[in-house]
């Protein structure tokens, strides 16, 4: 078997695909996520149907086999939003099937280096968003924040905010990927849910005051003699600024 494969875009679908292809050491050229309704008759892609049980069993085996470190790499890469991540992960797992835990040290191998790089990108973005979340207090006491990160980092930052703001109700909404985390302060639990904005959030009067205070505070902080806009742009890219209060964002 060689060629192009597709799955339904879900995590279970992808894991099923790996579970089917890895034992055969299949030679894969491309893996794409194709939604069911887009699957046509004349497709050259081989479509792998999702099987929840197969996916779960595969994941179980994988978590036992892999070292903590490669599991961490893999988790992050699964959350990445990269055109080729499925194939990169496949190549990595293929090498792992051959080499076992020796793969941990094969940092310069062409199947490992890109996985490490991608996982770094995801990890770095997740860390940056620990700082870039801006909550707004809504009528009714909910704290709401929206973001549009490159990768699906919510699962990587949820625990941090659940600990830090354990006594406040909050939502972090990833507008780009259409999902969000909802934290319940009563039960001390958080959930990842599909999410959409339906209306402009209705903020409290106190919220507007704090935003004004923060903006004016931020404006005084820079030392004019040291101005370095290029450095600032490297640290706070424009795409992040639209959600940052101090840059005039929501």
């Amino acid at each position, binding site marked *: 078997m060689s060629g192009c494969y597709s799955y339904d875009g879900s995590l279970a679908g992808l894991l099923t695909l790996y579970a089917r292809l890895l034992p055969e050491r299949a030679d894969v050229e491309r893996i794409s996520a194709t939604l069911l309704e887009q699957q046509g008759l004349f497709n050259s892609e081989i479509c792998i149907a999702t099987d929840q049980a197969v996916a779960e069993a595969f994941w179980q085996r994988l978590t036992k086999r892999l070292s903590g470190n490669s599991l961490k790499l893999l988790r992050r890469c699964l959350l990445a939003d990269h055109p080729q991540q499925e194939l990169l992960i496949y190549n990595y797992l293929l090498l792992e099937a051959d080499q076992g835990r020796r793969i941990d040290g094969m940092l310069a191998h062409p199947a490992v280096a890109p996985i490490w790089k991608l996982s770094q990108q995801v990890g770095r973005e997740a860390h940056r968003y620990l*700082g870039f979340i801006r909550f707004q207090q809504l009528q009714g006491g909910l704290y709401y924040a929206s973001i549009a990160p490159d990768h699906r980092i919510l699962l990587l930052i949820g625990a941090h905010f659940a600990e830090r703001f354990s006594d406040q109700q909050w939502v972090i909404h990833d507008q780009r990927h259409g999902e969000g985390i909802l934290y319940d302060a009563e039960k001390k639990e958080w959930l990842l849910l599909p999410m959409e904005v339906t209306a402009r959030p209705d903020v409290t009067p106190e919220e507007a*005051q704090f935003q004004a205070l923060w903006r004016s505070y931020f404006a005084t*902080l820079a030392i004019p003699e040291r101005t370095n806009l290029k450095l600032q742009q490297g640290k706070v890219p424009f795409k992040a600024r639209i959600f940052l209060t101090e840059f005039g964002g929501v």
Partner: protein
Amino acid sequence: MATDLMDRLKILADGAKYDVSCSSSGSSRANSNGGVGSAASCGICHTWTSDGRCVSLLKILMTNRCIYDCAYCINRRSNDVQRVALSPAEVAELTIGFYRRNYIEGLFLSTGVVRSADYTMELLIQAVRTLREQYRFNGYIHLKLVPGADPQLVQQAGLWADRVSVNLELPTRESLALLAPDKTRDSVVGPMRQVSSLIVTNRAERKQSRKVPRFAPAGQSTQLIVGATGESDRQIVTLSEQLYQRLDLKRVYYSAFIPTVTDSRLPARPEAPLRREHRLYQADWLLRYYGFSAHELLDEASPNLDSELDPKTGWALRHLELFPLEINRASYEELLRVPGIGVRSAQRIIRARRQGHLGIDDLASLGVVMKRARYFITARGRYAGESGLESSALRSRLVDGPKQKRPVQLSLALEQPSVDETASLITGEL
């Protein structure tokens, strides 16, 4: 909350912004008893200002009134600025308001000195105590110690805060006497010594029993102003080394002197102050993470850091006899001393070479900066620099980087005027 609060916040932030300490790292404080906040040991930056500095903590003064008259300070007694203050309750309320919106990682509280050192220190402690007790705030707090404050107050401060600091500001006793005549070196170094020994004792006590409360878990830091007085880099780096070794400081910050007030005792704006500051930070990192000592980086013959080269490359150029280094055999300590190899890449080289010898091409994917490292290493005996170590051009290559070939338009030589002709066209001579 009225505009009045906004104005005061502005003035007090303006007075505190020249303190460069920014980090929120080194302390991991769990969210306890249903309060708000936690401290992440890695530190988190929340935003960056237009000068490229990060904002992690709400950095403010309690008040900008001050009984001292230090020449370099914007809040000096004789400077004509509006004087305002925040109450401990206001500080706490602002901190919590910002914190709950995730604007900040915690509070950095400094102050001018009012009435006496002890009175001022008590005010600071009161604000921090309100936060910790009343709001059950578990976020990061960096508290300034007032020079000359009572040792008992210093001890209390460390129990409420994650990090405490006193700014040395001027590297030598003489400079301090010149620019800050009201402060003595001992009133600054005294609290630093005390904190250092309290941290050591606390560490030992906590080994006996985990119930002993933490004292300044994120340690202490200090700041040196660079360029306001005539000290050499060698004096500054040697001082930092001593501070790290003897007083176990977590950080020494360097602040390039930028005049905010005019004073006959102060120099005019020094040349390229930010470049110098940058080089000092690089040297500082070499001291803390790369196993260098101050006398290796600077000596009597060259008392100042090279502004064109980073200090590690400068050191390597003075010790060419140690290079090139075979990366498949070099120890971790040796790898760390290669320009272009950092802590991460050295660790990755060590891990990766257990699985087989590394070639030159593998290094870039391990994170090595080959632009600099290529001249100082071999891999499987192969050397990748365009010119050898003996080459006299090595220094200039490291300063400018390898020469890039610019694309040139292809055309017939006949169509191009020769150099002489162009020259004559300009001068008008034929």
